[in-house]
């Protein structure tokens, strides 16, 4: 492990990679601050840039920097203008915005910056401990277990989609898997479902799909509903960044607890920074003293520190399944996985052995990134917050232009732009009807790996018998079924109980 850390230090501290961390954090903070643009869209837009860098460690470092920069930036707009840039910072606005209204915006930003820094750093330490351990276990897995594990991941993502959404999320996942079968697969050397169209020979472009699923609908939502991008009222001086000794003492245990809890939630597939931040807020409110509980929602520093440390720790946690199993647990890590595959890196347990420099450089760069974000956020924030004043009449055409550019650079083909617009419209309509879009993209990205592992196990065991013969596979698939059925079952029971029908147990 020490060896690995040294390799990582060497790689991460090279000039290019340092620039990547700084650049990524800056870009992430800037764009994450803009209301309505989530980390998924930002990363989707950045992928063509990352891929053309060519060096996988640099690309991943850049994208990871953008990711936690975006979460960081989102908290700034939550606090200052009560307009969370990303879903995972909604809980930040509960107490951050009241603080800003009381003229304590500087204090709120400081608490947020310290909480995020600690959450991210503690998360990185835990990642360093957990990931190698998990990778060792994962090396024992065969294709059958991989197949089952991916099924578990996909079902968990669907199961976390919320009440009344599970089947919709499942349908979207399957649709993503179906789209992944289009084109010429590596396994069979024959084109499938191309309908004779040459452009479909190589399948759908992953970048195009990522843009169409996230960036384009978000931009269209901003157009349709101008109140989503309210960028006024961001004025007012930000001063007095200091916090008192009492406040520091109050938030320290909160940060410690929520960093660990957030990390663990981030590791789980399907649950991400958003769930971690809400849960962190709720837990801290429940265990706080009575008089402190009153303060929650009115400008409690504890209530601000909890979601901030939790969401940053969860971001880091979500790298565990990505780096050790090669299975993304969230839309954002799915996009990162797609980028890695495009760079000829296959994340998984072998990554640590075959390409330790990538693995460790990413982890080391997380420490660096957190330090850089702390430096960025504390003294520079009053200036960075000026970006909130960019009028939407300029902002939106630029977002659209960057999505177009991303799709074009990815494929170097103008037809791709038409596909982008087409899919973007479909995605927007799906979003109108409350269909979650992340499962579709995750399914699409995992599709070929899922089929590969499935086919390999079928070949090894000459049929579907591998499910019976490998108890671990069986167990995992059983878990997947439980994950999918349980939410519907519980919702049904709750509904029956609400109707006054006895439910038997």
């Amino acid at each position, binding site marked *: 492990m020490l060896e690995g850390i040294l390799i990582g230090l060497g790689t991460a501290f090279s000039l290019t990679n340092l620039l990547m961390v700084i650049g990524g954090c800056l870009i992430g903070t800037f764009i994450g601050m803009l209301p309505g643009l989530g980390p998924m869209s930002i990363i989707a837009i950045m992928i063509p840039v990352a891929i053309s860098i060519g060096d996988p460690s640099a690309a991943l470092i850049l994208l990871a920097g953008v990711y936690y920069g975006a979460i960081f930036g989102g908290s700034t707009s939550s606090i200052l203008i009560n307009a969370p840039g990303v879903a995972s910072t909604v809980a930040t606005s509960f107490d951050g915005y009241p603080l800003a209204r009381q003229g304590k915006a500087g204090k709120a930003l400081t608490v947020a910056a310290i909480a995020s820094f600690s959450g991210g750093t503690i998360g990185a330490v835990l990642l360093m401990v957990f990931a190698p351990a998990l990778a060792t276990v994962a090396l024992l897995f065969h294709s059958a277990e991989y197949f089952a594990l991916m099924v578990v991941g996909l079902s968990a993502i669907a199961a976390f989609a919320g009440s009344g959404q599970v089947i919709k999320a499942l349908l979207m996942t399957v649709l993503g898997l179906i789209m992944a079968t289009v084109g010429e697969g590596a*396994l069979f050397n024959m084109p499938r479902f191309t309908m004779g169209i040459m452009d479909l020979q190589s399948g759908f472009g992953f970048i195009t799909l990522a843009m169409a699923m996230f960036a384009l609908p978000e931009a269209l939502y901003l*157009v*349709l509903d101008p109140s989503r991008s309210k960028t006024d009222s961001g004025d007012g001086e930000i001063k007095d960044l200091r916090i008192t000794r009492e406040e520091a003492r109050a938030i320290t245990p909160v940060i410690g607890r929520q960093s660990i809890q957030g990390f663990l939630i981030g590791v789980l597939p399907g649950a991400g920074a958003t769930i971690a931040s809400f849960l962190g807020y709720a837990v801290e409110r429940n265990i706080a003293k009575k008089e402190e509980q009153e303060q929650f929602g009115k400008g409690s520093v504890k209530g601000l520190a909890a979601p901030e440390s939790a969401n940053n720790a969860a971001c880091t946690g979500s790298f565990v399944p990505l780096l050790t199993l090669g299975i993304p647990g969230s839309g954002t890590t799915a996009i990162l996985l797609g980028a890695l595959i495009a760079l000829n890196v296959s994340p998984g347990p072998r990554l640590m052995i075959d390409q330790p420099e990538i693995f460790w450089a990413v982890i080391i760069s997380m420490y660096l990134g957190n330090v850089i974000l702390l430096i960025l956020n504390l003294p520079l924030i009053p200036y960075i917050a000026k970006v909130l004043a960019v009028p939407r009449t300029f902002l939106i055409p630029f977002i659209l232009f960057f999505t177009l550019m991303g799709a074009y*650079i990815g494929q170097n083909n103008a037809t791709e732009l038409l596909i982008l617009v087409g899919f973007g419209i479909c995605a927007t309509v799906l979003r*109108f009807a*409350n*269909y979650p879009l992340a499962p579709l993209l995750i399914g699409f990205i995992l599709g070929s790996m899922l089929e590969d592992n499935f086919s390999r196990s079928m070949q090894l065991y000459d049929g579907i018998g591998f499910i019976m013969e490998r108890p671990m596979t069986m167990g995992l698939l059983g878990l997947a079924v439980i994950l999918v059925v349980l939410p519907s079952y519980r919702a049904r029971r709750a509904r029956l109980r609400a109707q006054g029908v006895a439910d038997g147990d």
Partner: protein
Amino acid sequence: MALDRWIAMIVLLISLAYGYSAFFMMDEGLAPFMRRNPIWPSTFPKILCVLAVICSLMILLGFEKGSREPKASEIDYRRLTDYKLGQALGLLALMVAYALLLRPAGFLLSTMGFLMIGSYLLGERKYLIMIVVAAMAAGIVWYLVDQVLGIFLSPLPTFLSSGG
């Protein structure tokens, strides 16, 4: 019928077409030696098709009852005309036009046009700033993509550039 069920029906139709081709058309061209393989190119699609049909039927028939009321932060499609629908459609049309004009009109011209018309559609009327911002953006992005990243983007209209 609510929009989500219409979508489920469309997905159902797509998966039926997909399934038809997986179950009845794909295996015909399969080489005889491949037939002894436990896994065919159509195996996985067949499974997916069955899953998709089950899921979409469950939504279509309303097995899963969720919260009906739309979230406050989401857009209510039933009142779509209350929103800036015209602007959204205009921008989409502009994107299509950009896709079609990118090659013939060249990157610089089409990008400047796109950014300026886009701002105009959204109600911006400060023409001077629009021109300056659009020209700078087009120039910088072209420099980054073509010169730094090394991806060819023809900057000028086809009739002006020699090689094209």
